């Protein structure tokens, strides 16, 4: 479905279209804002791959949930379980103790969860069952978002923002150095694991709406853009959320005006923001 369908309709039809597309726009903006804010910490700690890893863990959970007979929105629960388990594994692993970089641990988790997901998808064929529901999860379906989805996204986003507000100073310390934060008496493992669990929840809910690729770009690009134009954790966090929301909403509106696929345009808008921010930052530093 192309978002631009509403462009060429008569006025009444356009109003109907607006009612139809309003939750889609809200979902785009919310996904962008929450993923962008998450990106401040995830990209700041140089683990942007976390987004796609958690998304595939959610997919693996949903695939096996589907094999157990769940369908539609019910798949969210096993998806959430898969994502949270992966987040727990990442949060509780002490990088210094296992002597592995976070990205190496992520690579292991990603390959394991992706292997599980595709094994499960393969089982659908062997068992002669339809895998449409889980395939839809893989790519997402922003244009089919309804107000119930938006409500769920709002709930998880509010939880995430509340957690960020409550533990902002601890997260800032962890962002600088998790090892230093532990050495300074900050309960870094507990706070970071809690953050990862909420990240898993937020990404799982966003994942079914926008798919793994868009999540990855909405985590990485707004934060990368914010890093170019401002400094200070709080400012970067706010700006990253704003850039994310602008990418989600702006990308959708451009797609609507040009009759192009909304997902691709959202990804490209967020990428363009990074380029523009890099140019702006470079000009400002001269």
């Amino acid at each position, binding site marked *: 479905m192309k978002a631009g369908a509403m462009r060429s309709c008569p006025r009444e039809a356009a109003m109907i279209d607006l009612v139809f597309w309003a939750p889609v726009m809200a979902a785009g903006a919310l996904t962008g804002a929450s993923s962008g804010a998450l990106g401040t910490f995830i990209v700041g700690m*140089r683990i942007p791959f976390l987004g796609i890893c958690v998304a595939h863990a959610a997919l693996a959970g949903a695939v096996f949930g589907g094999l157990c007979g769940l369908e539609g929105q019910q798949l969210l629960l096993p998806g959430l379980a898969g994502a949270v388990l992966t987040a727990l594994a990442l949060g509780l692993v002490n990088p210094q103790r296992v002597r592995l970089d976070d990205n190496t641990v992520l690579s292991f988790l990603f390959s394991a969860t992706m292997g599980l997901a595709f094994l499960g998808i393969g089982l659908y064929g062997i068992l002669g069952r339809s895998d449409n529901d889980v395939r839809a999860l893989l790519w997402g379906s922003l244009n089919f978002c309804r107000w119930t989805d938006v409500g769920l996204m709002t709930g998880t986003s509010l939880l995430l923002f509340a957690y960020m507000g409550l533990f902002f100073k601890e997260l800032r310390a962890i962002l600088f150095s998790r090892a*230093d934060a532990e050495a*300074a008496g900050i309960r870094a493992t507990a706070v970071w694991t809690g953050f990862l669990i909420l990240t898993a929840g937020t990404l799982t809910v966003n994942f079914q709406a926008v798919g793994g690729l868009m999540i990855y770009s909405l985590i990485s690009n707004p934060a990368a853009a914010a890093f170019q134009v401002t*400094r*200070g954790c709080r400012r970067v966090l706010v700006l990253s959320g704003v850039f994310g929301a602008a990418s989600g909403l702006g990308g959708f509106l451009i797609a609507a005006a040009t009759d192009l696929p909304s997902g691709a345009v959202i990804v490209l808008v967020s990428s363009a923001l990074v380029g523009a921010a890099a140019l702006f930052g470079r000009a400002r530093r001269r």
Partner: protein
Amino acid sequence: MAAPVPSSDASAGRDAVIAVTDLSVEAGRRHILSIERLAVARGDLVSVMGPNGSGKTTLLRVCLGLQPATAGQVRVFGRRLKPSDGAGLAGLRRRIGYVPQLLPVRSELPMTVREVVAIGRTARAGLFHALSRDDWDAVDHWMARLGLAPLANRAFGEISGGEQRKAIIARAMAQEPELLLLDEPAANLDLGWRERMVETVETLYAETRVSVVLVCHELEVLPPSCRHVVLLDAGRVAATGSPEAVFTTDRIRRLFGASLRAVHEGGRHAVVPQGGGHD
């Protein structure tokens, strides 16, 4: 003030901020540390020195509870460290300012210098509490004391290595620690910055009388107030005492196997190639 490692002196453990007994640290089959007794008295400035790989950093990490001991006992502020006691360890660490050897390079986010120093107040403020006006006053105070005020809003990654180390020391001091652990604070600094760092440590110690354990491997980094040195070699205490007593020319030659000799002058110390300098 008690001497740092009089293994025969039973009083060394009294009022000690750090007391180590029969400590052994191993990694796999590799022996890293083996210390019979070591005590650092409250208000003392002790330097732990030794060649690379002698176990200096490991000793600091053990005292912070960041590295578990294979055997033996470590007491910090009179409390025995237990790796399983997460809350207890966090409480102890809040009283210790730690300046690590390697500066953090993980964060890609352009955090300001003031924010980095404020990390020192984070654990003190406690969970669920934002930093108060008093916390920020303490941050600004230590930034001013260390000459970092003009850099407050610069990104930490944009300032020089020496300034970054000062910021990390300011972070540790903002914690208002009872014990300051400095791990090679002058590493990779040029001569000018190294001297500024020595002055900084000397001034901090003279003005606050905080207990300090300074890990380094260069005699030039010892501040004049440091009258106790613990020399580690291959994970064992090779000698203890004043810098002049520990760093004799004979011992330096034995340790480093080179034609070097020690120079002690005006409370400062240096190692020069044989034939250079004057005693």
